[in-house]
C-alpha cells in the first residue's frame, strides 16, 4: 500500500468521521405524533401547578400577541439576525402542540428541538429551561395541553442566510447550551436554592438582564450586568446596579409581587408583564426569587451606602422649585411632573420621587423617555401605579429638556449624550411596541381568584 493511498484513506476516513459527527450534532429524530389528550386526562392540581410555573416562566409574554388569543404565538421578536415569530403553544393539533407527547415537550424544554426533530431558535430560552425538572415540565405540559386550542399558524421567520438554516442552531448549542439539572448549593438555604433554580431556569431572568455576545448568546462572564430588550434597557441586577438605593430581598419581593417599591419605583416595559405574572403565583416562590436575586446584587459597598445616604438626605430637603416661565427642563418639570412626583402622595397613585428612579441614574435615557411618552396605564381591578402619557402634549425637545434637567439634578452622574435622538427613537419604538405587545394586564383582576386554577 503506497503512502499516498494511506493518506488518501485517512483523509476519506476523516471526512466520513466528520460527516458522522456533524450528523450526530445536527440530526434529531422526530417523536411520534399522538392523538391530542383530553383536558380531563390531566389532574387539576397538576394543571394548577403548571399555571403557576407558566406564570413564573412568563410564557404568555412571548407566546401571545396583542389582541391575540392566549398562547397562540405569532409575536414578532426582533433579533440582530432577523425577526423570529413565537410559536403557537396551544393544544391545536395542526398549528399548536396538540400532537406533542410529554416526551416531545420535555425535549423542547431541555434541548430546543421540536417534535419533528427541528432545532428551535434560542429566542426560546432553552439555555435556561434545560434545568427545569421532570416534575415541573410535566406540570407545564399539563397546563398548556388544557388551554383552549387555537388554530393559528406561526408566521414564517424573516432571517437572512445562513441564520435561516436551522442546522446552524445545532452549532450554537454546542457552544452555548449546557444541559443539566440545577445543582443545589449545600452551603445555602432551601429558599436560596429554590430561588436560584427558578431565576437561572424557568424565570430566565438573564435572558434580558445579561448582555449578549455577537452570536446572540448570554455572556456568562457578565451575568446579570444588564442587557437590551427591544427598545428598553434591562438594568444590571448585580453589583453594577444603577439603582440610587441598594436593593434587598424585602424590596425585591415588594417590587416583584406588587409591581412597585416605594424606594425604587415602578416596573415598566417588558418588566411590567413579568411582575404582573408574579402577582398571581405562590408567595413563597416570589420570596425565593427575591432572596436569590438579592444575593446576585450582593451586599452594598461602603461607597454605595454613602451615596444612598446622600440620596435619602436629598429627599428630606425640599427641592428648589425653579421660578418658571421659560421653556427650560426645570420649568417643565415643575409644571408637569412635580405635582405628582413631589406631591408626597404615597405610591402607587403618587409618583415616586425621581431622585430614587433608576431610569435617571441608568447609562442612557431610553426607559425614562419611554415612560414619559407612554405613561403607565392602570391594571383593571388592581391597585396599580398610574401615570398619564405625555407623547401628545410634549415635543421631543421638551421631553429632552426635562430628561437633561433631571439627569443633572442629583449631581452624581455624567450627562447623557444624544438625548433628543433617544427620545425620537423612543417615540418610534413606542408606536411599534404598542402595536405588537400585549397590554400588561394579564393578572386575574380579582385578587381573591389568584390562588385558584
Amino acid at each position, binding site marked *: 500500500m503506497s503512502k499516498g493511498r494511506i493518506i488518501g484513506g485517512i483523509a476519506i476516513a476523516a471526512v466520513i468521521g466528520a460527516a458522522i459527527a456533524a450528523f450526530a450534532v445536527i440530526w434529531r429524530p422526530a417523536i411520534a405524533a399522538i392523538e391530542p389528550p383530553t383536558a380531563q386526562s390531566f389532574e387539576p392540581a397538576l394543571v394548577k401547578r403548571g399555571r403557576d410555573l407558566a406564570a413564573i416562566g412568563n410564557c404568555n409574554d412571548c407566546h401571545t400577541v396583542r389582541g391575540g388569543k392566549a398562547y397562540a404565538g405569532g409575536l414578532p421578536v426582533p433579533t440582530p439576525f432577523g425577526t423570529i415569530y413565537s410559536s403557537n403553544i396551544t393544544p391545536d393539533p395542526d398549528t399548536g402542540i396538540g400532537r406533542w407527547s410529554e416526551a416531545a415537550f420535555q425535549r423542547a424544554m431541555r434541548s430546543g428541538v421540536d417534535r419533528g426533530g427541528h432545532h428551535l431558535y434560542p429566542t426560546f430560552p432553552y439555555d435556561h429551561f434545560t434545568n427545569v425538572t421532570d416534575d415541573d415540565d410535566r406540570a407545564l405540559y399539563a397546563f398548556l395541553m388544557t388551554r383552549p386550542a387555537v388554530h393559528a399558524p406561526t408566521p414564517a421567520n424573516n432571517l437572512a442566510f445562513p441564520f435561516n438554516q436551522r442546522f446552524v442552531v445545532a452549532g450554537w448549542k454546542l457552544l452555548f447550551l449546557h444541559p443539566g439539572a440545577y445543582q443545589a448549593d449545600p452551603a445555602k438555604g432551601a429558599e436560596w436554592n429554590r430561588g436560584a433554580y427558578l431565576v437561572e431556569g424557568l424565570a430566565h431572568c438573564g435572558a434580558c438582564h445579561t448582555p449578549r455576545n455577537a452570536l446572540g448568546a448570554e455572556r456568562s462572564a457578565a451575568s446579570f450586568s444588564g442587557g437590551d430588550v427591544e427598545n428598553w434597557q434591562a438594568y444590571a441586577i448585580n453589583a453594577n446596579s444603577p439603582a440610587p438605593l441598594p436593593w434587598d430581598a424585602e424590596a425585591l419581593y415588594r417590587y416583584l409581587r406588587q409591581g412597585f417599591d416605594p424606594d425604587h419605583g415602578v416596573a415598566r416595559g417588558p418588566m411590567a408583564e413579568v411582575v404582573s405574572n408574579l402577582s398571581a403565583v405562590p408567595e413563597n416562590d416570589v420570596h425565593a426569587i427575591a432572596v436569590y436575586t438579592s444575593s446576585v446584587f450582593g451586599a452594598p459597598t461602603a461607597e454605595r451606602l454613602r451615596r444612598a445616604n446622600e440620596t435619602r438626605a436629598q429627599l428630606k430637603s425640599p427641592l428648589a422649585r425653579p421660578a418658571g416661565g421659560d421653556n427650560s427642563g426645570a420649568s417643565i418639570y*415643575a409644571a408637569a411632573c412635580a405635582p405628582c412626583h413631589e406631591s408626597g402622595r404615597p405610591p402607587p397613585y403618587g409618583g415616586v420621587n425621581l431622585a430614587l428612579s433608576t431610569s435617571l441614574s441608568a447609562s442612557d435615557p431610553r426607559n425614562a423617555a419611554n415612560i414619559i411618552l407612554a405613561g403607565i396605564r392602570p391594571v383593571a381591578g388592581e391597585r396599580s401605579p398610574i401615570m*398619564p402619557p405625555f407623547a401628545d402634549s410634549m415635543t421631543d425637545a421638551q421631553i429632552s429638556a426635562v430628561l437633561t434637567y433631571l439627569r443633572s439634578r442629583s449631581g452624581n452622574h455624567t450627562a447623557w449624550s444624544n438625548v433628543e435622538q433617544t427620545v425620537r427613537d423612543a417615540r418610534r419604538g413606542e408606536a411599534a411596541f404598542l402595536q405588537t405587545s400585549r397590554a400588561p394586564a394579564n393578572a386575574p383582576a380579582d385578587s381573591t381568584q389568584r390562588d385558584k386554577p
Partner: protein
Amino acid sequence: MKLKVNGHDHQIDADPDTPLLYVLREDLKLNAAKFGCGLGQCGACTVIVDGRAVLSCVTPLILLEGKQVTTLEGLGTLDAPAPIQRAFMEEQAAQCGYCIAGMMMRAQALLQKNPKPTDEQIRSELQPNLCRCGTHMRILRAVHRAARLMDSAELLPSDQGSVQ
C-alpha cells in the same frame, strides 16, 4: 401668556404650571371639558391640541406655547352641531353625559387622522376614556356614525334638511 383656543387668541393671566383645564373652565368659561380625576386617568378633560387628543388636567400652560387648542365648543354649536356631536345625539350615546365631551374629542382626533376606523381601532383609541354609565356600545356606534357623516354629503347640520 397668549393661548389660542378655538381659533381665538386669548391673553391669560396665570402661572405657567396652571393646568389647561382650569384656564378653559375658569378663565374662558368653556365648560365642555370636565374635571374627573385630575390625574389624567379618566379622559373627561380631553381636548384637542394641534390635532392630538390631550388630557387637559395634566397639561400645564407652559406646554402650550404656540399651539392650537380645540374644545368641544369649537367643533359646533347647539344650532349647528358638528358631525361628531350629531352622531352622539342621534345614537343617544350620553347617559349622565359627564364623560361624553372627552369621548367626542378623542373620537374627533381619531377621525381626523383615520376617517374609517375599525371597531378594534375605536376601542383601543378610546381606552383611556372611562364611562361609568355603560353606554360604550352606543358610543362605539356613534363614532362609526360620525365617520359616515363626515364621509358623506351629510355635513349639513340636522336642522338644514338632512335625515333625522
